[in-house]
Every structure is written in C-alpha cells, then in structure tokens.
C-alpha cells in the first residue's frame, strides 16, 4: 500500500448551512452560505485559494455541468475548479480532490464544497433518473429505500435474526438519531421520536418504514484545507488533520454469484475501512475511534455499516445497537449530530457535513451536543449507490498531535 497522507493535510476552516427545505435558496445561495462560514473560520481571503472541487450528486434539478457554478457563486480568482460526482459519496470525493492537491504540493490552500438542491423536484425522496440507455433496458431502477431494504432480507437470512428483532434494532437507530438531531440547530428534522412511532410508521420499502429513511434536504458544506505548517503559520493552535481518506468502488464483484457476496453487507466499506485504519495507524478501532458519522441513509445501512467498519462483530451489530453502544452516551457514538437521518441528506454536501461535525467535536465546538469525553479520532463513512454496487468513502480526522 502507498504511504498515505496521514497528517500531511490540515483542515483550515469548515462551514455548513442549515439543512432542510430551503424553499428560498438556490444552490448558489447555499454554496455561499457554507463558504462564508468556512472562510471566516479559516481566516483567509478568497484570493488565497489555489484550487477548488465541487461535489454534486444530481444534475437534473441542480446546477448543471462543470465546476463553473462554484467559481461563479464564490467569485473564485481564476483558479481550476472541478466538479466531481460519485453518487452520495460526492461530498467526500470533493474533499479528496482538495486534500490530494495540498498533499501533492500542487496547491497550498484548496477548497472542497458539496451542495445539493433537492427540494425543487416536486416530490419527496430522491429524483428518479436514468442510469444510462443500456442499463435502463436491463437494469433495475428501484427507489433508494427499496435498494437498501434488501440488506435487511439478506441480513436476516444470513444471521438468522427474526423480523421483529431486526425491526426493533433498526428503530433504535432512528430513535437515537432523532434524539441527537433535536439538539442540532442546523438539522433538518429536530423532533425526537419514540420506538412505537417508528415501529408503526407507514411502510416505504419492506421492512423500512418512514422513520427508517433519512430526510432529503437542501444544503451545502465546505472545507478549506492546507498543510499543517501553513495552518500554524496562519495562527491556528488546535490543528485537525486528515489521518486517512480512502475510497473504494464496486467493480461488479457483488453481482458475481461465485464471489460469495450474500447481500447483507457492504464489501466496499470493509475494504475502505481496512485501508483507512492502516493509513491512520489504527489497529483497535473500537477503542481508538472516538466517534463516527456514518452514511445512515437508512437505519439498516447504519446497522450493517457498524459491522463493516469493524466496530461490531459480524452478525452482532443489531445487538450492539440495541445495547446503546452507538448512542450519544455510548462507547462509540454514531451520528451525534443527527446523521443523514435528521441533519438531513443534501447528497453532494453529506460527506463534508459528516467531517464538519467531526471537526467541531474534535475542537470542542459542538455546543449542546458536544461529546463530554474529549474525542481525538473521528471517522466518517460516506456511501453512494446501492448495496449491490456502490462507492464507499472512509475519512478519519483527528487532532494533529495524536
């Protein structure tokens, strides 16, 4: 494996809009809102940014092609701006561009911004779209909940978990995230819910009910990165660095019968997590990771992801969930900001939103939801696609001297 980029890139500043139904804002307004917070946090001027990456998931109701909309919205100073798209992992993908630019020395300061304007579709959930002319003839275009719901059927069959037990564990995931989201002023959904409400909600895609699904939101998040030396030179005291950033894309292995995938987990997440732990020098993740933000697009996704990140034993994640291991006061909190479930899920922004929360928590700036035990290493997991074919991004950030 390559040497990796541990501690070679520091986060200089971050920003994140309020997520939600931003009826009054266009995508470029949201970009500016996230950017203004990030640049103020970084304490630099726009002209100091050498390169920028823009992460966006959906074109149809959004900003159209290229990085130009970002350059125009922020009035960037004649720099290279690249748009990236990697399904729901587009946010982390945009950060990868910026981080690699700094790590390589090609840029001193780089910006990553993810944005999504989803509430102009006219209906709830993600926009329905083509996946290419050939795919549309032989492939399956289900809804996102339908694609992820299949994890549950395979998980039950693989680990012999009853429908009721799994449904309760999934409900616990959502109840926990609602409790966390209620404390977050920027979250889309801020109302706590109880188990009964979750269990009795209308079925969206069996066995996922309404509360097993995350919110679809408008929003943007932004990161400005540089080298630790430049950050110190700019007067930064507590430096948060990138410990690891790994992305793994499906190559069709899951859809090969002989490969042995059983539909109950994310192959790519396991690969990306192993590589990220190695890059960050982590060998006991359950003890070393202080908190996690994972891609909880659906409750079942979060549940199996805890196993794929090696934070639960295979087949035991549902028990750990019910035991409260990932609650805000548990041993490894997950979605302390409400997660995709309640903070919301503006596709292109989500990966950066997760890192934003981890960054705030590491610096002790998370307000009423601040983890009391001071965190030192925080993991974010940003997933795009569907269980049978996806891209999984794992980023670990931490305090520079840890």
């Amino acid at each position, binding site marked *: 494996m390559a040497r990796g980029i541990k501690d070679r890139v520091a986060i200089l500043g971050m920003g994140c809009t309020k997520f939600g139904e931003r009826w009054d804002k266009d995508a470029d307004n949201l970009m500016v809102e996230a950017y203004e917070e990030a640049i103020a946090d970084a304490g630099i001027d726009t002209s100091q940014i050498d390169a920028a990456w823009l992460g966006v998931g959906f074109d149809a109701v959004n900003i159209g092609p290229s990085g130009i909309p970002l350059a125009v919205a922020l009035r960037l100073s004649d720099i290279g701006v690249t748009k990236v798209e990697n399904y729901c992992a587009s946010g982390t993908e945009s950060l990868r561009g910026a981080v690699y630019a700094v790590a390589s020395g090609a840029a001193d300061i780089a910006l990553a911004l993810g944005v999504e304007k989803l509430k102009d579709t006219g209906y709830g959930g993600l926009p329905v779209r083509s996946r290419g*002319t050939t795919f549309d003839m032989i492939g399956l275009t289900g809804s996102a909940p339908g694609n992820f719901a299949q994890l549950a059927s395979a998980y039950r069959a693989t680990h012999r978990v009853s429908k009721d037990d799994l449904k309760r564990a999934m409900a616990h995931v959502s109840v926990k995230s609602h409790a966390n989201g209620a404390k977050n002023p920027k979250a889309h959904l801020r109302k706590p819910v109880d188990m009964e409400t979750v269990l009795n909600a209308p079925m969206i895609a069996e066995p996922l009910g309404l509360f097993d699904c995350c919110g679809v939101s408008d929003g943007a998040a932004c990161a400005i990165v540089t080298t630790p030396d430049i950050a110190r030179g700019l007067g930064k005291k507590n430096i948060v660095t990138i410990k690891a950033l790994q992305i793994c894309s499906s190559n069709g292995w899951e859809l*090969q019968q002989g490969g042995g995938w059983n539909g109950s987990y994310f192959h790519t997440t396991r690969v990306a997590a192993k590589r990220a732990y190695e890059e960050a020098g982590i060998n006991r993740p359950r003890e070393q990771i202080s908190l996690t933000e994972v891609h909880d697009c659906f409750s079942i996704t979060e549940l199996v992801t805890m196993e794929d990140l090696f934070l639960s034993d295979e087949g035991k994640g549902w028990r750990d969930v019910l035991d409260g291991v990932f609650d805000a006061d548990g041993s490894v909190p997950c979605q302390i900001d409400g997660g995709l479930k309640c903070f919301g899920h503006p596709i292109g922004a989500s990966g950066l939103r997760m890192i934003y929360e981890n960054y705030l928590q590491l610096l002790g700036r998370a307000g009423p939801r601040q983890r009391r035990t001071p965190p030192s290493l925080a993991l974010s997991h940003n997933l795009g696609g569907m269980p049978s074919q996806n891209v999984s991004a794992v980023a670990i950030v931490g305090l520079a001297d840890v």
Partner: protein
Amino acid sequence: MSGDPGILSFGAYIPRKRLQRAAVHSANAWFAPSLAGLAKGERAIGDWDEDTVTMAVEAARDTLVGFDRARVKSIALASTTLPFNDRLNSGIVKEALTLADSIAAIDVTGSQRAATSALIQALRGAVSDGDAQLCLASEMRKSLPASESELLSGDAAAGLLIGSGEPIARFLGAHSVTMDFVDHYRSAGMQFDYGWESRWIRDEGYTGLIGAALKDALAQLRVEPAAIDRLIVPIAARGVPEMLAQRAGMRPESVANTLVAHVGEAGAAHPFLLLAAALEQAKPGEKILLAGFGQGVDVLLFETTQALQKLAPRRGVKGSLARGIKDSNYMRWLFHRGILELDRGMRAELDQKQPGTVLWRHRKAVLGLVGARCSKTGAVQFPRSDISVSPDEHLAHTQEDYCLAERKARVVTYTADNLTYSPNPPAYYGMIDFEGGGRMTVEFADLSPEDIEVGREMQMMFRIKGVDEKRDFIKYFWKAVPVV
C-alpha cells in the same frame, strides 16, 4: 422419407390473475343489470406488464419444451390485439426465444380465425422432415366497462409446433369458407369492438355458417359425425357447441369444454387454447375436429397418435389453470388496461424513451436474456462484458453467449417497494442467483405478499419493462416469477 404432417407439440399460457365476474358486475350492475346472468365464474386477465407478445412468448416456451429450438424454421403469430401495427410482433417473439436468425416470421391478424387459417397454411406446408413451424395465437381484447365482452373475454395464448415425422396428432385435412359476415368489427384505430345482435349471430353465424361448414368438412373428409371424439367450437355463447354437435349428429360427449367458466373466450387464441386442452386429455387414436370462426369458417381434422404419450410434461392448459389466483380488484384491471386514469404522481413521469440503436446492439441481452459464460473459468454473468465479472481472474475477451431465460433461480435479497412508481404497487424486486451460475438484480412479477423469502425458487418470464407513452413504444425485458 417424409412422414405425416401434423402437430408435434402444444403449449399454453394463461395469465395468473382470475378476475371474478361478480366483482365486475357489482360495480356495473347500476348501469347494466341485465348482465347479472353472466356474473358467474372468473376470467383470465393479464397483468399490467403483459400483452399478446409476452403471452405468446410464454406459450411458445411451453410448446418448445423438449424440442431442439434449432428445428424451428418459421414462426407465425395470430392475434387481433398485437401491440405493434408496423413492427413484426412475431419478430420480438423470435428474439425472446433466441431462435436462429435465419427463420421466417409472420404476424397473422384481422379475424377471429386468424390462428386456424395460419395453422392450415403451416400444416399444408409441412413437408420437410425435421423442420418445424411454430404457430402461436395470443389475444388480449380490450372491452368497454359494462359490456358483455368484458365478462366473457379472457386473456390467453397457446402454441402448436407443426411438422412432419412423428406427430402427436396427424392432420387429416381442412375445409374453409370465407364470407363477409360482420357479427362484430374493430376498424383500424378503434379500441373496442362494435357488435350486432346476438340472436342474429347465433342463427345466421353459428347455426348457419359453422353448422354448414362442419357438415361440408365431414363430407369432404369422409368421416362419420359419430366418429368425432372431440369437437372444438371456440364460441363462448352458452350452448352453441352443444347445439352444433347435435345438429351435425356428433355425440354429445364429444363437445369440448369452452373454458368460459375460468378463462373466458380468448378470441383468435381460443381455438389453439381449446385444442391444447383437448390434446392434454386425449388418448391416441382420437379424432379431433377444430373450428375457427370469423368472416367465414375454418374446419380442421386431426387424429392423435401414440407419440402423444411420449410428449414431455409441460404446463399446458392444465398447469396454467392451476396457477390461477382469484382477483376481485376490478378497478386495478381497468387501470392496467388503460381504461381508467389514475393520479400516478410525478415519479411516473420518468421518460422511457428507448434508443433504437441501443436495443439493436443489445437485442440478445434485452429480449433473449442472453448473458455470457467465460470460456476459461465457466463463470456465468449477466450482462456480457469484455472483461470477466470475476476481478481475480481478470480475463478479457473470453466470453461466450449463455442464455439464462430457461434457468431456475433463487432469491438472494428482496423488497416490496411502495415508493418507486409501479402500476401494481408495491414493486417487488431483488437479487437472484441462477442455477449453474449467474446473478442479477431483477423485478419480480406474479407474486403474492406471503410467498416471498430469501431462497424462494423463481423462474424467468418475458414481460413489459416499461412503456414510453410519449412515443408509444413498449420496452420488453425479463422478470422473475415464483415457481408454482
């Protein structure tokens, strides 16, 4: 040596749903109370994703059980309700069956006796040993709510494989008359039939035309009426076959059941469907007289042979009847047939445009469910790709065509999706593993909610995947249905 021409094989397909006539009548009784007498039993209805082409494919697959498809040298598809006016419907069937490119194909239409007329042509042309002609008939008529036709019609398809050699039923001859008797008609562009008085049709059409044709046919073929073991008259009107048998001097027990109680009358496909049912029940040495009626009459005479007992087991009519599930949702059926508009929501607005170039390039995969098998490792995959699906091997350009349509499969993952648009919500779909290798994510059809679980055995069926309503184009593909 050229053997006797005749029927080599038969097959049938009746859609799974049986609409309860009482449910139809209870909705319409306020307007058409006189139909109460017909509000008994059930009729077969195709699901939203079925049409005469998909039903014909299923009937053909059933017909070809145990036969080498390479023997098929021509295909004829008879129907008055084909989806395309100018695109060879039987050509779609040919692709779905992955028959050789070098075969002839024809759509036969325009009359309720299209199938029997095509059958006569095929039988008279059956000269070359080994070659076989596939004759298919399929019908899915659209009827106005509160009409008699709505209650009496049924959706179904059937197939006959014709050739010489060792037929299961030898062709003894045929007789045809053609007269412009307009009992009903449907002009180009019309959705529904317009019919004349039933008493006149019974007297002049059934009694007069069919009665005379039966008599003339028997005289020409020098067969005594009492020698007929099975008389097939594909007319749903009550008592008509019995009346014709009596008038012609045939034994009352020779009259074949018209399947009206559980299927309904399947238009141009009905003669084949009833013939398939008769062949299922017949013993060797029986004489079967088959009539087709529509602007004239076709009469065909067959005699079953010992080969009938050697025919491989198949679904047939019996198996199709056994697959039936009762359905009382009249509104859903009206919606599926495009008679009732529903608010389908914005998710239904996805453009279904089908680029013709892509369909042509991928016709084997799309219409024939042809994937690939690696010639080095034997790994099966769908769809085919230049570099093998197995990344460990990383073999390039090693793949050979491999058809998955006839392979059984098992469910690996599934869901019932209420969010995605489906004309029949919830949309069932998931991942399946084929016996012998190959895996795909696919839509499920013909499913009951209590009958789906990881490990469930499935089989593939040719169905409508989507409809481009803007440009009036039907997109076909394969779906997994539970093995029943």
